[in-house]
């Protein structure tokens, strides 16, 4: 019996989608997206890739845990097809990610995780929609297990997890006893792409579904943080365009202008 890893994976509107796909619903204080397919949160994909590496090294198995209002089956299956052994899905009409703050999400996930006999929980360092980076550490706090964050490299050895955590100028090595939770940074590497055959076969991978009621969680959970407005970012500046007779002259003129304006 190897190590049992749970990977938490959120579904988000593709954060790399064109800026015009995002619109502010100022009356409802919500972000509305147009024509954007849901994708797996990129950082959670990094976490799954780490899990697949540990599974191969330690003869483990992987449970995928996902929570949402109406989760995309193709997105789930594609992730499961990479080498996931079973999946837990928490779904309900009240589980729109924009109606849940980090505390509510962590409450739901930790309640589900109490039913699982895990050794290691891996999550992305943050979700690409809320950009909050709180849920992973919050889940660990609620479960009372040690957590290590912003990991780029993770190894499991003799009942311990050893990570390299990203720092601005390098990394710090830390370890914690299992069971533990680790949040994974993008430096850990991209998720492998499953074969078409594996994606087709993924629908046979065991899955359990829970509603919040099944978990005994009463909704809504009182918000600790409330969104009171959404708006397009304003990042525009007045650009001075430098143009010479040719690109070389443009480059030289740009250097001169930066000097006379005391930018350099």
């Amino acid at each position, binding site marked *: 019996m190897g190590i049992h890893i749970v990977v938490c994976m959120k579904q988000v509107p593709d954060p790399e989608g064109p800026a015009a796909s995002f619109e502010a619903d100022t009356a409802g204080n919500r972000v509305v997206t147009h024509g954007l397919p849901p994708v797996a949160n990129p950082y959670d994909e990094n976490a799954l890739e780490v899990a697949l590496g540990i599974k191969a090294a330690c003869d483990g198995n992987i449970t995928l845990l996902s929570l949402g209002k109406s989760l995309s089956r193709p997105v789930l299956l594609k992730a499961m097809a990479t080498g996931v052994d079973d999946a837990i899905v928490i779904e309900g009409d009240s589980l729109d990610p924009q109606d849940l703050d980090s505390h509510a999400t962590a409450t739901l996930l930790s309640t589900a995780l109490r039913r699982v006999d895990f050794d290691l929980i891996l999550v992305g360092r*943050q979700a690409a929609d809320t950009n909050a980076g709180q849920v992973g550490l919050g889940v660990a706090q609620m479960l009372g297990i040690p957590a290590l964050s912003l990991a780029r490299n993770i190894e499991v050895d003799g009942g311990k997890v050893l990570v390299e955590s990203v720092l601005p100028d390098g990394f710090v090595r830390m370890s914690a006893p299992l069971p533990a939770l680790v949040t994974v940074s993008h430096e850990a590497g991209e998720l492998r792409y499953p074969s078409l055959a594996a994606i087709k076969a993924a629908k046979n991978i065991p899955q359990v579904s829970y509603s919040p009621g099944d978990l005994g969680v009463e909704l809504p959970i009182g918000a600790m943080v409330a969104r009171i407005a959404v708006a397009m970012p304003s*990042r525009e500046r007045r650009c001075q365009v430098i143009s010479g007779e040719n690109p070389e002259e443009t480059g030289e003129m740009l250097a001169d202008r930066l000097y006379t304006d005391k930018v350099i």
Partner: protein
Amino acid sequence: MSGSERVIIFAETEDNVGLSKLTTELMGIGGWLASRTAGRLVAVVAGEGVVGAADQLLSLGADTVFVADHPALSTYNPEIYLGLLTGLLPEQEPFTLLAGHTPVGQDLMPRLAFALGAGLVTDCCGIQAEGPGQEPVFVKPVFGGNMMASLEVETPSRIATVRSRVGTAPAAAPGTGEVVMLEPPAADGRIDVLDKVEESMGVNLESCPVIVAGGRGMGGPEGFDQLEELALIFDGAVGASRPPCDSGWAPAANQVGITGKIVAPDLYFAVAISGSSQHLSGMSESGKIVAINQDPEAYIFKAADYGAVGDWRRVLPALTAGVKKHVQG
């Protein structure tokens, strides 16, 4: 909210010596928030040999500085630092606690928020507050930087992590506040911090005064040496948008953007970068932004102070030569 507010700054040092620049900026925000209600400005600093940093916090306007000075605090250990703050903060409630959106802030504040049951907003690039009765509103990027959300914290105490350049450091003046020494708590020993490794290639993008970044339009890894040549004139660093990192032209650690490093140097060169939301939301707080791009319609020009339209292969060498002439004489 009525009565005076207590504003607490979680201070960070540069390797236990002086305060980080971001911490001095937080003192500016903290002073402003506290002054709205004639509240108190409190700072907490932990480390080894950080008494000088405590004096600096007094000179920046702290009424009280809590100092935890111990070898065990020399490097950050999540459990020891969390124990320190959960020991200190309950008697300070209700408070508004500000920390930098740094690796330590990103790790410690969620733990603290969940331990205390306080609401937390991370990665703030704006804090708004009007009159004394007005709750502070925290503004942050969401959805890959494509949108900004304004958030209010509903719990009596609030915590926020704040980016560089959101606040302005106050002028230093002789301090009149008090210093209170704290005992460091014992670690419960679950997490071991083994060692810190500085990488020879690992430049500190977050604290670099000048960044020269390349994008998809670089076309390959070769041009990144030329970016470095320009960066080195300023002791600066090379960054990249996401596509060069995905393609392996630049290390993932150098990625600038909401899915990489969030930077705000004095001067940012965006070379062959189109200006996606996810990149802009990682660097738009920079002092001056200079864009070089072949496409005059590229969005980056809208977000830049200076723009040069042209092939970087021809513009950059001339720019670098010109900069050398001016900077090095």
